[in-house]
């Protein structure tokens, strides 16, 4: 068996999500090849070649792949895929965009967002916003899988680099063009890989009030997230959203502030190791999943929390 893993990157850095996909691929068993598709992304391939468990790296470094448009990447993936038993990608917005298109080109039915590898052809995946877990077995000869990154550990770095081979022949399909990006870019840890996440909901009442959460986040070395309600209300940008249709997080500690805990939000954070919440409505569903719940007005509790953490000399880990 041979497995092709699609690398998540921004042409400069290999994203941690790739490591989780490699870990899932190792559980499927087989020689792992990582595909780095982009433009000017040699450093990414170099990093990928030092990922433990990887046998080789394919580097498709060509202008039409720069923005990783699905129309240009999927044909490349479909061309390479027949040499492999599996094609695996992290279930990031990039992976979700490209993989089904490539699978359809080869008449394969993708298995989305797996959380467990049961056997090389059998996987567990959440359905109904994680309110049920389905075990599914693929009958395809090339199994397309996207991986929920929080369900698999990242890969370790290896001392020796494996070979990097160039792949050419990517073309511009002429269907779409990348116009630009408005990326939030934060100094804080990335939401999906942070050890601690502190999220605010509708109860925050305004975007300015998120500054209170940011102060606590800075003490804890935490990422800041939000519920859909807070994003819809325009308090924070879309990339803060945790939930069924936003980001799925599973940190060591998830602190939910002013979040009622709709099913769709719980779907994105209920696998966190420890959940704490602050909410003034003691009937809020968030208390049913929280290990530690505090019934309080967040506008009193959050500044108090900051003071308490400072007094105890708590530092980011």
């Amino acid at each position, binding site marked *: 068996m041979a497995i092709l893993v699609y690398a998540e990157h921004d042409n400069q850095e290999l994203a941690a999500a790739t490591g989780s996909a490699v870990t899932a691929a190792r559980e499927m068993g087989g020689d792992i090849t990582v595909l780095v598709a982009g433009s000017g992304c040699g450093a990414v391939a170099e990093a990928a070649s030092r990922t433990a468990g990887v046998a080789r790296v394919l580097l498709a470094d060509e202008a039409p792949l720069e923005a990783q448009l699905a129309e240009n990447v999927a044909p490349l993936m479909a061309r390479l895929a027949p040499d492999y038993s599996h094609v695996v990608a992290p279930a990031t917005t990039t992976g979700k965009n490209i993989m089904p298109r490539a699978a359809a080109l080869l008449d394969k039915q993708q298995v989305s967002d797996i959380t467990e590898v049961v056997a090389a052809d059998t996987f567990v995946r959440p359905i*109904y916003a994680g309110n049920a877990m389905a075990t599914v077995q693929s009958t395809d000869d090339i199994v397309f899988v996207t991986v929920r990154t929080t369900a698999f550990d990242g890969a370790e770095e290896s001392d020796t680099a494996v070979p990097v081979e160039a792949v050419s022949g990517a073309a511009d399909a002429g269907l779409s063009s990348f116009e630009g990006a408005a990326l939030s870019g934060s100094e804080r840890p990335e939401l999906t890989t942070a050890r601690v996440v502190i999220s605010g909901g509708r109860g925050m009442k305004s975007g300015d009030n998120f500054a209170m959460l940011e102060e606590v986040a800075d003490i804890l070395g935490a990422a800041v997230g939000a519920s859909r309600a807070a994003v819809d209300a325009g308090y924070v*940008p879309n990339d803060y959203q945790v939930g069924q249709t936003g980001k799925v997080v599973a940190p060591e500690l998830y602190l939910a502030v002013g979040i009622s805990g709709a099913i769709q939000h719980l779907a994105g954070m*209920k696998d966190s190791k420890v959940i704490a919440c*602050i909410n003034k409505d003691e009937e809020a569903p968030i208390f049913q999943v929280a290990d530690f719940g505090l019934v309080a007005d967040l506008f009193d509790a959050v500044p108090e929390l900051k003071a308490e953490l400072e007094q105890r000399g708590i530092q980011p880990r």
Partner: protein
Amino acid sequence: MKVLVPVKRVIDYNVKVRVKADRSGVDLANVKMSMNPFDEIAVEEAIRMKEAETATEVIALSLGPTQSQETLRTALAMGADRAIHVVHDGDLEPLAVAKMIARIVAEESPDVVILGKQAIDDDANQTGQMLAGLLGWAQGTFVSKIEAANGSLKVVREVDGGLESVMLTLPAIITVDLRLNDPRYASLPNIMKARKKEIAKRTPEELGVDVTPHLKVVSVEEPPRRKSGIKVGSVGELVDKLQNDAGAI
């Protein structure tokens, strides 16, 4: 511009799902069903395009059992001009759905197909991308803004790092995200009017699509339950628990 909007009948988003005792799936008997919320946003966008005179006709399409007609009636009541129902009992995988939509596209020649980015039942997030691949069309996924621009569509996509703008040549596939619009409620007169609109019936066989599943569902189970937690009385106690009991900070 002619717009095709595929819509799916799913368990209502407010319903707490229950796994069947024999672990074969989720219990759908006597459960409230509705249009997939993302598909409502897709219908709304198509209707707004028609109201803005960018679109000339909006066709709703659903693939599923007899009751999927109700979902199509909702789309018609919201403002779709006519509907197509591909009648099929039993589960359909995204690939089979994409193939059937591709056949309807070949018959109807829409300029754009707008779909929800995912259905809230199987959470697969595949159909739009697969359809675009099968048709060889441009795709704009997870879209929160659409602008028509000289024979192209400029879309804003919600991606992990923020927002991204992509220009799509027509014809194109668009899958919509939550913040594209707020879908309208159908008014009573429009619901009455929708009863008279046409729903054409088709079958997978007629369309020549093999819907045999590629995936076998081995079992469906309840997710692991979290141990019930405790309420703390003060911020001090909360920090104490997090620091000393849980070792989380």
